[in-house]
């Protein structure tokens, strides 16, 4: 994505041309938006009605939580337990919001409306931008294209669930992890990020059988403070915590 721009596309002030930001944002918005099809199919296949499936995409609008909820309901879990797992998965969006509110410098009146678009993909695109202007463009273009397409493809997926039959046979269950991996890759800038990612992946897999799905992801997030703490210890005094290279 962002790494693909050539030197000639870079502006002297370190900013990016708006068209390049829009192209990167649409790349993410369209690709992930289309994967709403997989959600629509999965949700309808899990026994939710068409209206329930569409309500989830319109109102919850955070893919991992939606998949977690319908997966738990399909597995026969209680409604409250299923909702709790989905909620815990959604808690990570608060951390994206924490960074985005400063980066985008949103007014108080705009925040309730911008909030619904605070998800993995908009955060990844906005946080990868070099300037506030391009971060704002990235957030809005990714959010809008993703919201519209995600809801449209959810509807189509739910309608087509019976026509397509076994979605796993079409490899659609690999779309989710591939999306997460594509979002993660540009973040792995230094040894610290790679250590956090490696430890979190191990914790996520190791804890999967013993904790509810949403909870094991949250516990795996402890890899971040753990690696930071270990880094501070190794450096000795722990006073010099390095800032991001932004």
């Amino acid at each position, binding site marked *: *994505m962002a790494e*693909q721009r050539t030197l000639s596309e870079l502006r002297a002030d370190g900013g990016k041309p708006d068209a390049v930001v829009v192209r990167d944002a649409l*790349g*993410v918005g369209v*690709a*992930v938006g289309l994967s709403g099809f997989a959600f629509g199919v999965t949700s309808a296949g899990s026994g*939710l009605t068409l209206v*329930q499936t569409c*309500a*989830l995409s319109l109102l*919850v*609008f*955070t893919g991992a939580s939606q998949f977690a*909820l319908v997966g738990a309901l399909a*597995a026969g879990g209680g*409604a409250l337990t*299923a*909702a709790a797992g989905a*909620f815990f998965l959604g808690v*990570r969006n*608060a*951390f*994206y*919001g924490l960074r985005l*509110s*400063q980066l985008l410098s*949103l007014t108080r009146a705009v925040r309730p409306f911008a*909030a*619904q678009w*605070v998800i*993995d993909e908009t955060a990844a695109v906005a946080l990868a931008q070099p300037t506030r202007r391009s971060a704002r463009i990235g957030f809005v273009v990714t959010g809008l294209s993703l919201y519209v397409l995600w809801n449209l493809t959810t509807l189509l997926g739910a309608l087509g669930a019976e026509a397509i039959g076994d979605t796993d*046979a079409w*490899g659609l*269950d*690999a779309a989710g*992890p*591939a999306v997460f*991996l*594509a*979002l*993660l890759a540009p973040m792995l800038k230094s040894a610290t990020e790679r250590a*956090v*990612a490696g430890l*979190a*992946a191990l914790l*996520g*897999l190791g804890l*999967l*059988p013993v904790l509810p*799905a949403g909870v*094991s*992801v949250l516990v795996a997030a*402890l*890899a*971040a*403070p753990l690696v*930071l703490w270990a880094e501070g210890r190794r450096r000795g005094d722990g006073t010099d*915590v*390095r800032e*991001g290279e932004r």
Partner: protein
Amino acid sequence: MSIWGAVAVTALGCYAVKLVGLLVPAGALEKPLVRRLAALLPVALLAALTAQQTFGDGQAPALDARAAGVAAAAVALVLRAPFLLVVAAAVVVTAGVRAMGG
């Protein structure tokens, strides 16, 4: 609680945490340690989600065609392929491996 109840609770809860993140005062981020932690948390969460959705089947560990698909996505990422191609590689390879009985 009905399915509609689960939908409502999830929708309200997920919207609330999104909004809370945006409403926390910016001053909370001025400490370098907090900034660093906020930058690293998405790395940890995305890595854990990738691992679980690649090698997990519900609560159980699983090694199936998805591993080949996600490996193809990783290769596409190393080759700097566009986002859509990365996802398409995962889907096509996973479907292909399954079709061959993997």
